[in-house]
């Protein structure tokens, strides 16, 4: 793909596959080059020999990456830490895997997604703060869909968004998008209230609306993502669900 050598590019590690005895094929999400896969030599420890970049090549940590070389599989030349985020623990850690799995499934290699990188980075920082985990995941899912060309249209047809009533009912269906739902009529997609759409558009919701907004947003995003993810289930979502009766994703 690229012949040039790229130096100190902001990136996050998404996934590592062992390769040969001590190497790995690593997928990174980079700021300007989208998702890339590089060959990283000597990064796994073998008897008596320490792994290169040991402890630094971790997911969920901001890195500075240098790589280059001809052909489909460039070589990793260097990794440095770019700031430090506390290690993710518990469900936040599993949610991190979920975000990485979404990126691996939804994005194509070498397609730049610098806005989405910003969103991912912000989500990584927010995952370390005492914030509502589920909502962070929803906002990233929203950004991911938008970046992949499937943005939710918050401007409803025949109605200005200002007129969007918080309690009005809407129906989201794959083919038609989001349309007002007439009283007593049936929605064979996902039914939701105006306040949920407004929360997703603005990124925030009133505390009193949490019990409405969170489940509706989850249903909506899950529904939309399912069209692009296909039949293969998300493994990390399954893991989150097995863990808790009230699932997060």
């Amino acid at each position: 793909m690229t012949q040039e050598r790229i130096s100190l590019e902001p990136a996050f590690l998404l996934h590592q596959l062992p390769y040969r005895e001590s190497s790995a094929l690593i997928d990174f999400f980079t700021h300007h080059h989208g998702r890339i896969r590089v060959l990283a030599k000597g990064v796994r420890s073998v008897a008596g020999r320490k792994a290169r970049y040991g402890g630094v090549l971790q997911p969920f940590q901001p890195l500075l990456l240098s790589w280059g070389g001809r052909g489909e599989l460039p070589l990793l030349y260097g990794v440095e830490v770019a700031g430090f985020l506390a290690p993710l623990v518990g469900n936040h850690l599993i949610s991190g895997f979920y975000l990485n799995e979404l990126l691996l499934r939804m994005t194509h290699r070498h397609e730049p997604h610098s806005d989405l990188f910003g969103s991912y980075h912000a989500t990584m920082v927010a995952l370390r703060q005492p914030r509502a985990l589920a909502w962070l995941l929803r906002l990233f899912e929203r950004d991911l869909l938008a970046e992949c060309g499937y943005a939710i249209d918050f401007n409803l047809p025949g109605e200005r968004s200002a007129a969007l009533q918080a309690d009005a009912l809407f129906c989201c269906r794959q083919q038609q998008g989001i349309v007002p739902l007439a009283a007593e009529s049936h929605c064979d997609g996902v039914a939701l209230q105006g306040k949920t759409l407004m929360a997703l558009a603005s990124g925030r919701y009133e505390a009193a609306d949490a019990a409405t907004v969170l489940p509706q947003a989850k249903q909506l995003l899950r529904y939309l993502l399912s069209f692009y993810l296909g039949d293969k289930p998300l493994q990390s979502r399954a893991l989150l669900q097995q863990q808790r009766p009230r699932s997060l994703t």
Partner: protein
Amino acid sequence: MIIERLIERLRIMPGIGPKSAQRIAYYLLDRNRHGAIQLADALVEAMQQIKYCDRCRTYSEVERCAICCDQGRDVTRLCIVETPADQIALEQVTGFRGYYFVLLGRLSPLDGVGPEAIGLDRLQQRLQEGEVEEVIIATNPTAEGEATAHYISEMVHQHALKVTRIAHGIPMGGELEFIDPTTLNHAFNRRVTVERFNR
């Protein structure tokens, strides 16, 4: 033909490329045919007869491994490791006298490795037997190892048992300025009180 096949087969070993495989094949033919035949026999025997212990899942040539058969160990403590090699490493240096459970892997959602693949249903049964009081989680300090530790700790908490996690920190002979930030952060935050040394 036969020799090419031998070279090809030797390449299944980790780190053995075509050149090394050829060198090994010629060496065995030239210098040590007897040793090679013994190796072949040992390989067949091991591959056919070594299975997994029905209790802890480590490699064993009998249904239950020697450690699990040892009645003298502390049944209240169970140590969970990723691999048989990890179990041996701990057994050699820790003086731990409880029992082990070997996951033969780690949870790795992005590789499709879920709880069943690492035997957590079996671990659940083991906990239900009611003898274990403390579960020591000795998975590696990687993202996957931590996710595994978290999942197992949730399971163990459901049984209202004690869960401990092996500490991780600065390796012996290490220098602080070259330690990766995660390790350094962890080592600092989980620092321990230095007891007064009494003679």
